[in-house]
């Protein structure tokens, strides 16, 4: 009687365990195949000239995507500059004063905003910036990416600040430290490594965005000077090259996809290396 029940438990344990393993393998299949496919197709297109030369016109062989690589870095940098400070500030506000009606409203709109399709953000910035200035620009693209980052950065900052034990704030206030200083120098400082990780992940996500750049940064076969000109970027180039009818361009699209993948991977890995040592370490 007892042994039969025990056998039954062993069997159900085995069944559930194998189901979990199977599900994990299933989930890994698309991930691994994307990595494998992009690598195998893109690797042959990677060469020194890919990183150092401008695209060649159709018909000419060779050329690279140096301008798109720099363009992507430029756009991401701009997005960080415009997106991170207000995002972190809003996150601090929510963590500190989020119980007010206004705070709830801000949190709600941040949640809604993180669900807005990226192309919608593109249209929004198009009408707000591109139509006003009457031309595409890196500036517009940076704004679009910043808007996409904003909700993620805000919510990450808020959540990580809330992970910091309230006892630390009390400790600081009990030492006669003004509230704003306690927030900045104790709470934010303690949460900083975690926030940095969250921000890096947000950056990695927008680095691969295409839709919002299509009609903001647009594209450019040449070097763009400054931030006020249309700017090439890897994702948009991938799109343009992949839909073209030329075999050589397809090859270039794969190579660009691989570079973009590595770029995002690099951001992700460096984010993981910054993993919080202090939050929750108590």
């Amino acid at each position: 009687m007892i042994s039969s029940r025990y056998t039954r438990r062993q069997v159900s344990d085995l069944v559930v365990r194998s189901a979990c393993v199977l599900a994990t393998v299933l989930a890994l299949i698309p991930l691994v195949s994307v990595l494998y496919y992009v690598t195998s197709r893109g690797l042959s297109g990677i060469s020194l000239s890919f990183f150092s030369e401008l695209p060649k016109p159709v018909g000419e062989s060779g050329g690279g995507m140096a301008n798109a690589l720099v363009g992507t870095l430029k756009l991401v940098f701009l997005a960080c500059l415009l997106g991170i400070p207000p995002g972190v500030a809003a996150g601090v506000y929510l963590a500190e004063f989020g119980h007010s009606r206004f705070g709830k409203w801000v949190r709600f709109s941040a949640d809604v905003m993180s669900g807005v399709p990226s192309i919608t953000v593109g249209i929004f910035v198009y009408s707000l910036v591109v139509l006003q200035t009457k031309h595409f620009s890196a500036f517009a693209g940076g704004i679009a990416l910043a808007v996409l980052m904003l909700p993620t950065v805000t919510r990450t900052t808020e959540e990580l600040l809330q992970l910091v034990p309230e006892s630390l704030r009390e400790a600081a206030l009990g030492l006669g430290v003004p509230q704003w200083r306690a927030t900045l120098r104790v709470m934010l400082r303690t949460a900083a490594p975690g926030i940095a990780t969250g921000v890096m992940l947000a950056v990695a996500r927008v680095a691969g965005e295409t839709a919002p750049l299509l009609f903001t940064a647009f594209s450019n076969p040449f070097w763009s000077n400054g931030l006020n000109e249309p700017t090439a970027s890897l994702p948009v180039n991938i799109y343009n090259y992949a839909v073209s009818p030329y075999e050589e361009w397809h090859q270039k699209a794969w190579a660009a996809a691989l570079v973009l993948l590595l770029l995002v991977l690099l951001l992700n890995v460096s984010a993981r290396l910054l993993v919080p040592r202090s939050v929750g370490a108590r």
Partner: protein
Amino acid sequence: MTAGSQNRISRPVHRKGSRGDGSSGDDKSRWDEVSVSTVVPKMRTEDLRAYFGQAEVLKGISLQIAEKQVTAVIGPSGCGKSTFVRCLNRMHEVVPGARATGQVLLDKQDIYQGDVDAVRVRRRVGMVFQKPNPFPTMSIRDNVLAGLRLNGERPDDPDAIVEKMLQRVALWDEVKDILGRAGTGLSGGQQQRLCIARSLALEPEVLLMDEPCSALDPIATARVEELIHDLRKSYTIVVVTHNMQQAARVANFTAFFYLGKLIEHDRTDVIFTRPKEQRTEDYITGRFG
């Protein structure tokens, strides 16, 4: 009564390592000289009422806190003893929805008056919390200096301050070689003494301790209690405790709180041997709470 005579009040229970304020036979007569009404108060509350939203947690507390003495606040859970000490340095209002009315006098100045800055009050009235809470991003050394640094001060000789404060809490010998390590790496008792050193570095006049030993083991508790006894010479101390033996061991005066009211406040020996109120007696004899 002069300030000098107050210092002669000795603790009802003597521990090893105490100051030696005289023999216990001597104590009797000295105890007779003092009572709650004759000591010089460092702090005084008048009809102090504290609220969380609509709930009234303290229902009109009027209490004197004797200068350079240890006052213990005892009572069952939820009686408002923690809220009471948090009102003494305006930490109560830090909690959203919390407020307090009435007067809290520190050297005859009402700290709840409109023009008094809560932040200033907290520098004069330091606080030690239930759970040791050293700053995890700071080293042991920086934790001691945290109060000064976070307030934007640059002490001339930080090393001297660190050594002095850690000596004062009897932690120096244990940590003098590892000052650069994280404060959170210490044991619970060491962390709590580090937190006390951190509060003392601001040279407060009053030190509030909210169940400072409840997260500590008996040995660490004994060390903190010894420390409280030593600190009494220089500071006015208020200790919240749910441990009556602890109150008996460390405090000169004991206040018994029940359901947000002050039931009885007297010399510790009186509270524990011949309380005037039935409820006090019921509580200290373990009939409830």
